[in-house]
């Protein structure tokens, strides 16, 4: 532990990242460029999120990492260990005990509070990227608030599939100004983007940081006749019986059996500890 500066990055780098974070908070949804550092993990593993977490953590913080809602997947385990080693901070799997939560592709089911910071890992921060490949042009579109193109994507969805089929990384308008890619969270989580906690987004490879301050208005884009819908599998959790959480589908065998379980493992565990039982919970225990 003593070989590293606190939280791996040197103080000047953290200072630079904090400035980007503050600017991001001051201009909600605006992508602030920053000098992303080489991290001891590959791009796509959350190098942006890790740098934001490193600049945010203090020695008193309790850190939690989730990957697709789960605390026990490779990505989450290795990033948690990384900060255990380099920062020596306490870590937890319980959402309400954490002060900084780094997440990939989910927002925790439990309501976050003003004392918490949610850090997202972002692969491609530019919501217009797949429609307009030129960075110079997308920057101009953001600065002049020309967002008609975003609706062209939704139009294409409806014309091809009969409904808005974009189900993750669903574009939102932040504070009535910037259109933002909320990172690949399911659109089920989009309504939760208006929350009490600070939300920071870090894209390491693309070298962008952006942020949503607490209580900021976040509107999912849609059409008047095809309004936004937060969708999930129409099923209760098979382990804890929750009907309000986002579910993962798990294939059980080759005869078509499957189960749905909460993707937020901490939420599922705490519900089962409180005595809630789902359809397959007994068999699972046995």
């Amino acid at each position, binding site marked *: 532990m003593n070989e590293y500066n606190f939280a791996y990055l040197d103080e000047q780098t953290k200072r630079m990242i904090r400035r980007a974070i503050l600017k991001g908070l001051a201009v909600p949804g605006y992508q602030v460029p920053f000098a992303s550092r080489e991290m001891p993990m590959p791009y796509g593993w959350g190098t942006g999120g890790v740098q934001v977490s490193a600049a945010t953590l203090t020695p008193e913080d309790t850190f939690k990492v989730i990957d697709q809602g789960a605390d026990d997947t490779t990505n989450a385990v290795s990033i948690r260990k990384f900060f255990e080693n380099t920062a020596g901070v306490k870590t937890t799997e319980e959402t309400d005990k954490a002060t900084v939560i780094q997440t990939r592709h989910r927002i925790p089911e439990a309501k976050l509070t003003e004392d918490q910071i949610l850090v997202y890992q972002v692969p491609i921060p530019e919501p217009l990227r797949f*429609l307009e490949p030129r960075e110079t042009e997308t920057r101009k579109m953001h600065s*002049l608030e*020309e967002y*008609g*193109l975003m*609706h*062209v994507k939704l*139009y*294409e969805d*409806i*014309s*091809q599939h009969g409904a808005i089929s974009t189900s993750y990384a669903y574009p939102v308008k932040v504070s009535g100004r910037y259109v933002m890619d909320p990172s690949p969270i399911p659109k089920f989580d989009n309504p939760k983007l208006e929350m009490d906690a600070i939300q920071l987004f870090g894209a390491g490879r693309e070298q962008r940081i952006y942020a949503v301050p607490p209580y900021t208005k976040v509107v999912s884009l*849609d*059409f*008047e*006749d*095809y309004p936004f819908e937060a969708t999930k599998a129409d099923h209760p959790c098979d382990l804890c019986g929750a009907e309000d959480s986002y579910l993962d589908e798990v294939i059980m065998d080759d005869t078509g059996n499957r189960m749905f379980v909460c993707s937020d493992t901490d939420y599922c565990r705490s519900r089962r500890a409180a005595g809630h039982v789902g359809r397959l919970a007994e068999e699972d225990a046995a």
Partner: protein
Amino acid sequence: MKPLLQVKGIEKRYGARIGCTEVSFDLYPGEVMGIVGESGSGKSTLLNCLAGHLEPDAGQVVFDTRADGPMDTVTMSEPARRMLGRTDWAFVHQHARDGLRMSVSAGGNIGERLMAVGDRHYGDIRDKAIDWLGRVEIEATRVDDRPTAFSGGMQQRLQIARNLVTGPRLVFMDEPTGGLDVSVQARLLDLLRGLVREMGLSAIIVTHDLAVVRLLADRLMVMKSGHVVEVGLTDQVLDDPQHAYTQLLVSSVLQV
């Protein structure tokens, strides 16, 4: 009558070379102006200066905006100019691929301008897209096909539909019939003439094809080496050319 567009002393230089210089004219509502000249005569440079794609080195382009009356588009703010570019102005490129989004369906291409000015009702956007496909003689069943599946003539017609859907008042066309075979050209010209008359559009058409201007343009401007050498009513210029270069141009047309 108030002119829709007043061009005053436009000049564009590329270093020491002249792109176009000392171009001035007035364009009135409903009027179609043709610009002809050989390759490299500065036609496209002029058109791009007028449409705000290039910044002229000198001169004014005063457009009679709906809201604020005559405004110099060269000095107006970029957001305002880009807003004009997708509402009151339309630009038809020579190559349809430059003006279309090739990875987006025909309906999406037509709808883009509508959505850019704030249309948020899918059903309405789609109805308008289908209506416009009909107007440019593309079957309604092709609305969800991508332009890559369209022939060159259809792509050009789709580009025209995409540009005219917001009811612009001024259309810039850069060789709209270039690269199309003659029968397709004839149909496109027929269509354009119909649309221009029906919608009361003003247009500036750049071309090297004298037949196109004969058919579409009320007035004609002949350019040579960046200078305007002759201006007048189309029939007058073509039937009784005064300048040596215009005479050469008119006599160069092949007679079948």
